[in-house]
């Protein structure tokens, strides 16, 4: 049976208490914030609990919020069994973002976490194979951070060409 956002949230609160933050938003985009270190447990519970059964991690995205000083990892969960959705958010400090991995819960998270590591520099603790996935191994920095500055050249290859339109 599909559960509504309030019911989902209540079930989470009942199990984890204050680890799960208050309910934000509604409908498909209803979300709750979770402590970085506890996300794996929460994920495990969400996947195995027969009433919730979030068998699919639709999307895992990292967002850099320099003003708030944290990087937010957003987990979009979906249950093919019950056809309901929920969003989890995890805020990790910008200077040393560390989040527990959920790759053991959802296999899809493996590559998604590697992408977040590659592009935002979030370390997923316990990830079996945390390597860069899109960028070259020796690329400096993490491009999707707001303060990322593109290097002038990479291995002697300029990264941009002179605009022909400069007067």
């Amino acid at each position, binding site marked *: 049976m599909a559960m509504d956002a309030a019911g989902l949230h209540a079930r989470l609160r009942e199990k984890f208490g204050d680890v799960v933050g208050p309910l934000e938003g509604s409908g498909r985009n209803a979300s709750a914030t979770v402590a970085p270190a506890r996300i794996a447990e929460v994920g495990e519970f969400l996947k195995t609990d027969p009433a919730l059964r979030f068998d699919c991690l639709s*999307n895992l*995205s990292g*967002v850099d919020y320099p003003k708030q000083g944290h990087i937010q990892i957003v987990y979009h969960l979906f249950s093919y069994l019950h056809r309901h959705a929920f969003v989890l958010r995890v805020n990790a400090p910008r200077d040393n973002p560390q989040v527990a991995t959920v790759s053991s819960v959802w296999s899809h998270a493996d*590559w998604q976490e590697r992408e977040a590591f590659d592009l935002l520099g979030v370390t997923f603790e316990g990830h079996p194979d945390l390597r860069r996935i899109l960028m070259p191994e020796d690329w400096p920095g993490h491009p*999707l951070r707001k303060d990322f500055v593109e290097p002038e050249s990479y291995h002697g290859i300029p990264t941009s060409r002179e605009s022909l339109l400069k007067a």
Partner: protein
Amino acid sequence: MSLAGFEVEVQRSKDDGGVVTEDMTLSMGPQHPSTHGVLRFVIRADGEVMKEAIPDIGYLHRSIEKIAEKVGWHGFLPYTDRVDYVAAMFCNHGWSLASEQLAGIEVPKRGEYCRVIADELCRIHSHLLGVGSMAMDIGAFTPFTHAIREREYLNDLFEELCGARLTFHYMRIGGVGWDLPAGWIDKLSHFLDRFEPLIDEYDRLISFNKIFVERLANVAPITAEEAIDYNLAGPNLRGSGVRYDVRKDEPYSVYPELEFDVPIGTGEKGTVGDCFDRYIVRMREMRESCRILRQCVVQIPDGPVIAKVPRNLKPPAGDVYVRLESARGDMGWYVVSDGTAFPHRCKIRTGSFSAISIVPKISRNLMIADLIAVIASLDLVAPEIDR
């Protein structure tokens, strides 16, 4: 031994009656005829049998998500064409949907119908390339050219509709950029009339050909649980027998008003979720798309095709996650706005990205030739993986 970042373990085994054998490490791609763009697989093989195939992606990474943060809401639309250039309409649609939900814009009815027509044409367009190149990867060249022939007809239709053959940039935030040209609907009907019999002919030519079936049936079956766990989407998920279609189950646009079936893989030639099921689901989806198009042609109302949208769009701060059914399945757009003229973050979750992540799991102990069939049956499109 290190091979461009991959620690590949050289294994020596003595199981062949005392003969010392050594595994062969093959680098398939990035320049290989059937890796559809620039994928690379590091294959550890014992003769023709693969022990593992590790995908190496990123060769086509164009930092589209970073570009989104720099070019503004309207300006990013043409870039979405490049996310999946085989089915650009869906990326247009996804970005438009996300922006509209953030900014609270309602699309006129006719605009929605134009979008659905364009989407479904694009689905046929993409599936034709998918099944055609699949046949070619299996070694049959003629079905590929037949598919490309029909695709050419569609290209002409698109060209008339929006002026481009590949990077359409047809949709705009709030609707579509151009109304259907005069006489275009007739051409579309003409296309449907000739195309539906051609699907049958295509089936007779290749789909049920004994050799083709033997090459695909029972190869790399994916169970429904695995498919969901790895978040496969679209035809790959439905090939595993999960009847889930975003158009049907979480409807957007005017899909609730349209009637269509969701074909799923039943293991008719082998096991459920094998390469053949994924292939045949695509063939059947093309028929369903034709059915949707026929309904749209009749039902399309008059009226404006685009809502009034300010040129300098500044959606209120917030985030939204929209899903839509692209040719490669459930495409997710997570867009964060901070209330300025530039998006704060755009994350695109694509079907090919999750599809390729399952390759190491399903390709164990297959032949090298089977890996080609697996890549083709998952319908991987490299730009969509790397973005």
